[in-house]
């Protein structure tokens, strides 16, 4: 029977102690976890509900322009925080391109980072899935692969990480603050996730019981605010996961790129930052040649994992477009269709 203990700790240390027992899972808004439990995909023995922990739902601004976002801040609250959106517009745009208003009103920062893949075979308990049951095999291989990974995948798992939020975060050097039994540690988001390799069931560097307290964005990341975009291509205008997405951020002086940031979403089991492509743009003039070269570098190692070669070409084009949009400059107002190729389409109504 799907029985589980439900614990609502009062403090972070109580939470960590409770969740260090094997078989435990943290529960935030539950928009992902509860679905997975209902489908029998995960069956935690103990739910540690962190949604009421004090002190994790604030946004702290630092004098250097950086900030610290509590793990329980709701996706919608963060996106609509005017100071935050002004400094990190691509992150706000990514947040608003995800899910639906109802989900964004509920979903938390910590939960967004740790949401599971949307691989249909992972969700379907009648299919073999190495991530669900280590060693069971992977029914996605040779099955429906249109949306699966083209970078960093392994024979054991070809799934992708579905988050939009994480894509600009990783590009902007976000740091994850973690609390565990052995204390507190900071991990750059870039090295927070693991690629599947032979152990696709291990998705992040989190140890048993470790809790995400906050995500920090450094002040240096705010320097990209004038040229930062998120672009998300999907199968319908809203309420769909990315087929491929990209976050692009530039610092430009007299037409030359001082620094570039670039990350891709929907291509790998983690938000995919591509430093070689970033480095290729430093010192170059903004423009299609520079951006195309960066795109080629970013996708140089890409391989289809099935019937999804189109994603590689699509990713190249998205990179070029996102960089071009970033070069033009961050729009003064959030587009009616955030992160959409149709963002510029006029129309006063935001439906998404």
């Amino acid at each position, binding site marked *: *029977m*799907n029985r589980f203990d439900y614990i609502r700790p009062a403090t972070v240390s109580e939470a960590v102690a409770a969740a260090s027992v094997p078989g435990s899972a943290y529960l935030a808004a539950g928009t992902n976890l509860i679905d997975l439990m209902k489908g*029998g995909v995960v069956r935690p023995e103990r739910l540690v509900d962190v949604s009421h922990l004090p002190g994790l739902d604030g946004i702290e601004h630092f004098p250097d322009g950086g900030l610290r976002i509590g793990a329980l801040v709701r996706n919608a609250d963060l996106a609509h925080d005017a100071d935050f959106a002004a400094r990190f517009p691509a992150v706000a745009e990514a947040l608003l391109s995800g899910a639906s208003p109802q989900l964004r009103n509920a979903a938390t920062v910590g939960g967004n980072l740790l949401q599971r893949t*949307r691989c*249909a*075979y992972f969700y*379907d308990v*009648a*299919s073999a899935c190495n991530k669900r049951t280590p060693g069971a095999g992977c*029914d996605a291989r*040779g*099955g*429906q692969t*249109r949306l699966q990974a083209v970078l960093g995948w392994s024979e054991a798992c070809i799934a992708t990480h579905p988050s939009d939020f994480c894509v600009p975060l990783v590009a902007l050097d976000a740091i994850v603050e973690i609390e565990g039994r052995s204390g507190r540690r900071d991990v750059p988001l870039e090295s927070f996730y693991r690629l599947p390799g032979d152990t696709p069931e291990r998705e992040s560097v989190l140890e048993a019981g470790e809790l995400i307290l906050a995500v920090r964005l450094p002040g240096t990341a705010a320097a990209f605010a004038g040229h930062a975009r998120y672009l998300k*291509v*999907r*199968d*319908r*205008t*809203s*309420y*769909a996961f990315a*087929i491929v997405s990209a976050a692009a951020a530039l610092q430009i002086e007299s037409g030359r790129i001082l620094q570039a940031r670039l990350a891709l979403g929907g291509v790998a089991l983690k938000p995919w930052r591509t430093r070689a492509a970033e480095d290729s743009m430093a010192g170059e003039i903004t423009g299609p040649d520079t951006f195309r070269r960066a795109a080629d570098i970013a996708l140089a190692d890409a391989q289809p994992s099935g019937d999804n*070669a*189109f*994603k590689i*070409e*699509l990713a190249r*084009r*998205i990179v*070029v*477009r996102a960089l071009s949009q970033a070069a033009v400059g961050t729009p003064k107002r959030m587009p009616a*269709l955030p992160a*959409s*190729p*149709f963002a*510029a*389409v006029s129309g006063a109504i935001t*439906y*998404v």
Partner: protein
Amino acid sequence: MSEFTPPKAPAHIRQGSSIGQPLTRRDGFLKVTGAARYAADNHPAGMLYAVIAHSSIACGRVSFLDVDAARGHPGVVDIMTPQHKPELAMDPDAKLHPFMFRMDLLQNDRVRYATQPIAVVIAETLEAATEGALLLAPRYEIETAAVGLDGAESFVPPGVGAGNPAAASKGDVQAGLAGASLRIEATYETPSQYHNAMEPHAIVVAWHGDTLSIDMPTQGLVMTQSRIAAMFGIPPEDVHIRSPFLGGGFGSKGLAAGPQILGVMAARMTGRPIKLVLRREQMYGPVGHRAATRQTLRLGADGEGSLTAIDHHAKTTSSTFDDFFEPAADVSHTMYASPAIATSHEAVRVNTGTPLFMRAPGEATGSIALESAIDEMAQACGMDPLAFRLKNYAEVEPISGKPFSSKALRQCYAQGAERFGWATRKLEPRQMRDEDGMLVGWGVGTATFPALMFQGQARAVLRADGSGVMETGAHDMGQGAWTALAQIAADGLGLEIDQVEFRSGTSDLPDAGIAGGSAHTATAGIAIHGAGADVIAKLADLATGDERSPLFGAGNTGVLARAGRLFRRDDESRSETYGDILVRAGLAEIEGRGSSAPDPAALSAYAMHAHGAVFAEVKVDPDLGQIRVTRLIGAFAAGTIINPHLVRSQYYGGMIWGMSFALHEHAIIDPRSGRVMNPNLGEYHIPVNADVPSIEAILVEERDPYVNALGIKGVGEIGVTGSAGAIANAVWHATGVRVRHFPITLDRLIERR
């Protein structure tokens, strides 16, 4: 051609008092406040919950169910399996007529499609039943599933759709093609689409001795009643069904579905009332779907752009155990003039649930292919697609040569094109961009749907207090039957709508026929209309035969009913209220009956269809391929419009469905297991608000003297047709890429450029 005189509206009817008014939905308040009671909202005392355990394989047999584990779960009352179930009076695999579909009622341990019911767990709570179903942990002997259009040997089906022949032709297609100066041949694929009404199939059922009391959504009260009665060997009148509201039907609730019968069996077995509601993923198997098709069109045209031949061949899938064949090619019978037309079908049997009617069955699938092919031919001829359609306008029904009972399609083309601004369209593709550099494309599609009518009955009563009652067991699936039929009733009785008590939605009322084929307003409406005429005639008899009445001697046809009074036709200053007539006659009320049925003489003399033209504008990102429909304008002619407000809603809904067909909707099927991998509304994409652009529906005036006494054609399904093709054609016009595989997704544009 047989002698035929058009039916006349009874003399007393004044059109336009209620009929024609844009009333808002009369049940709208109930719905927005949550007071409307849908089947699953009912909780009879002592009720148990039944949850279906379904198969996760598509082919094989169930070798083991852990019944003990499930039975041991607290709250579980009983478990229905092939070994433990009540007797049925009829074999679920019997097929006595084409509309009797075989059902999976645990008759054995075979599995013939994924999501097939393999057991039913009955418990005190929904949670216990759900957990019990999980605990059954079935094991299977798996056999290789037949999957997809190439999954099995093909054959020519015995018939397609609701009994059409699998092949039809006129003229010599080979000669037409051989003699053509231009020929095209193209193959189009449409995917399986699954019924996803907001309200899943549900039943709340109680046995009282040998009679049944049932709440369930149904589009066919009487057919469902008799099917259930036959399954349990009781007289139909002992089955009482309430179905006041459906949360969408679209063809999936026309006939009782297997899962609903399982609910009745569970109630029989436990002796307690049962509630059984399908889970969303359980909709992807036992309740019908639109089958996949692969359609090849071969068209020939002469130097002037006139078609010389249309050859439309469709391959489709059906289940391994029953017959329903999507009649995709038949749309070519009625659309475009051609001296030679041939349509044909072939099918394969694969491991799916049996396909079924889904909004515009055949027309939707066929029309997206035909409309694409017509566009390809127009392009080959160097002609504007609208001009090409007008050039090949069918003045008579192409396959039969019959005249149309009415056809205002030319006006639809003209009014739609005008409103859309079609005249400035560029002939070549990839010529138009917006200010943001997006490719812009314009496409047109012709819409059509037969104007059908079934048999129905109604009963009318006029009461001495001046009010009226109209009864017919009609079905409101959200289309607005509670409102539109009440409007017809009010006019039929010569009363204001609020003076008429309109009773509907239960099986104890006169049979209103099935709510399908876009025929419900005509079927129920004509019966209502007839019942009104009948009761008014009886009332008039009372008055005109009574010397105390001011109407004495006026004779039956000499009176007119209006606003609760009868008037002398030749002298309207002489009149009398219904109440006065009845009171004087010493009657509390007077009753009349009406019925409707298609007129065989009219059917053999005329081709009867609704028509329309849909114009679409799409924008496509030239690099990324993402597509957005930005404008959709449909102009439709469908005879008498009972309620323009509701009719517009039907067109909007249909047009959005067409958009869904062109760009979104499809079951993602694992090629090995035959299972649907996106059985949920997160991943089974339909358009969301942001996808739906400005939509306009133009109601084109059309009077049809032949279809029925009120000139009503259907509006429920036609909106899907034409729209899907218009959008596909607009995508081509925007990009220059002709995608022949639906839905059109951006990968197909990326890969092609």
